[in-house]
């Protein structure tokens, strides 16, 4: 177990954020939820999460802004972007902004767990 990591989940689908938070809390993580980019940016500033999972289409602005914001603060915090559109343009934009990886929605819980474990693993080793 990677132990107590603070994970920020950003998605405008409240039901989804809620479910992911509960699932990850059950795995022993501390979870934060945000439903739009500005809320996410506030939480990043206030809480410095260890991992950020963000949707790309958010009500106020693109999730890419969230990625940029976290990169402006930290070089190595893993950022996982989720998107309903798997277009190469979006993927490239997300990676250019500094996303660690991108997933196509809907992301199965199993995949999410594995990806989170992998993303947090190098940090635990360091």
């Amino acid at each position, binding site marked *: 177990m990677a132990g107590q990591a603070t994970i920020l989940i950003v998605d405008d*689908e409240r*039901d*989804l954020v809620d*479910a*992911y938070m*509960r*699932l990850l809390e*059950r795995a022993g993580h501390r979870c934060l939820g945000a439903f739009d980019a500005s809320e996410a940016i506030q939480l990043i500033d206030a809480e410095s999460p260890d991992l950020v999972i963000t949707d790309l289409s958010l009500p106020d602005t693109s999730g890419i802004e969230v990625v940029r914001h976290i990169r402006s603060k930290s070089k190595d915090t*893993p950022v996982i972007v989720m998107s*309903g*559109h*798997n*277009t*190469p343009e979006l*993927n*490239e934009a997300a*990676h250019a902004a500094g996303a*660690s*990886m991108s997933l*196509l*929605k*809907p*992301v*199965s*819980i199993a*995949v999410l767990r*594995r*990806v989170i474990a*992998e*993303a947090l693993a190098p940090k635990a080793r360091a």
Partner: protein
Amino acid sequence: MARNDLPKLTEHGALNHVSVVRSRPVRIALYYALGGLIWVAVSDRVLSLMPAHSYDLNRLMFVGVNALLLYLVANRYMKTIRISVAAREEALVRARGYFESSVEGIISADSNGMIRQLNPRGQELFGYHEMEIVGQPIEVLVPQRFRYRHEAHRSAFFTAPRSRMMGRGMEIAGRRKDGSEFPAEISLNVVHTHRGKLVIAFVTDITERRAMEREARRNETVDALAAVAAGIAHELNNPLAVMASRIELMLTSDQDLSAQTREDLLVLQKNIERASRISHNMLSLARQRPGVRQAVDMNVAVEDAILIVGADAKAGVLRYDTSLDLSLPPVMAEPTGVEQVLINFILNARDAGARVIRIETALAPSRAGYLQLTISDDGAGIESSVLPKLFQPFFTTKAKGTGLGLWLSQRIVQDHGGAITVESEKGKGTTFTILLPTMADSSSDLVTLPTADKRQAPPQVAAARSNQSGG
């Protein structure tokens, strides 16, 4: 003008030359007459200067000069004729060459619409031998339903002939000897010969071009449909994700669930996964450009795909045999695309009632720089009549199929510079062979993102050489 012996090398150059040769004797006769006239005048003068007793000498000279004049003129005439004949022969040989080797069918017909000649390509196109078609009306080569109209057009054409395309803007077709038809493009040309007008028609079989146009149109339709499908899939993603996560929450909660409830939730979970997969497929339809590529180990991809599908397999029916060449170089590919292709093939085999699915990887024996992946099953097999349609979009033999799996798989493989072939026998099973280019230098261009595809393969299939799992 006199030296301009070589004819213009058009298809009717030889015919033009005939008239050139014909005009020459007249001119030569005129020269001779003129030469003779001058000689008579000159000789009259010469005679008057000569003594009266040299009459015999005079007569001799007169005959001699006349003979010389005749010889010169005849020689000139013969030379002209020889050059003309040689040039004419050459022109004929050339015209014959064009005619024989043309990639277009060439038909010539006289003003009564009777076929005079049909070149080899034309014979090939229409299925007639030249011997059996010459002398027949040109309408023999026209489909029945156009014949009446064609005759009217033909008469009109001969009253005011000019080179043009036939039936501009209309579908025109040629009729073969066996009654079948082919779409054609025909250009008409008129040639004037000493025996009257000839119409020369150039015929191109445009079956292939038509097929390409149809394909392009169908692709447009498919793209439009794909965009709609992707839009719907996108809207479905969030609700599906919410449902999947809630079910997961219930299944992993601490509360005791009754066995029935647990089973119900598992069924729900499985079906949501199925819906997600359909949705993913629909989304990939609209994909215009391939996504991020990275080095993919096909052996790992095969094992992953078996794991993903294997979990779904109805118990006891299915077994996987794998024979993996562990020394294979990686391919530069989009991991999700490769996974999707493999899953599609495994699901197809399963839907065909396969009991054993055999997957092999190896370096392609027939093609350097490619790896070969074969997926064989012992399922129902595919009717040979269906094989050509197998990769068409929306073609399916399954009651619940979308008809997109194989089409999509082929598109993905082709996007990666590969190819898919299929062999099947009804009742015996099917083998799909996928060829993919391997990476020339496996150390270059690696995308160093952590991804789901770099995970370790589970031990039961990892070191497989004719390994069996599932069952």
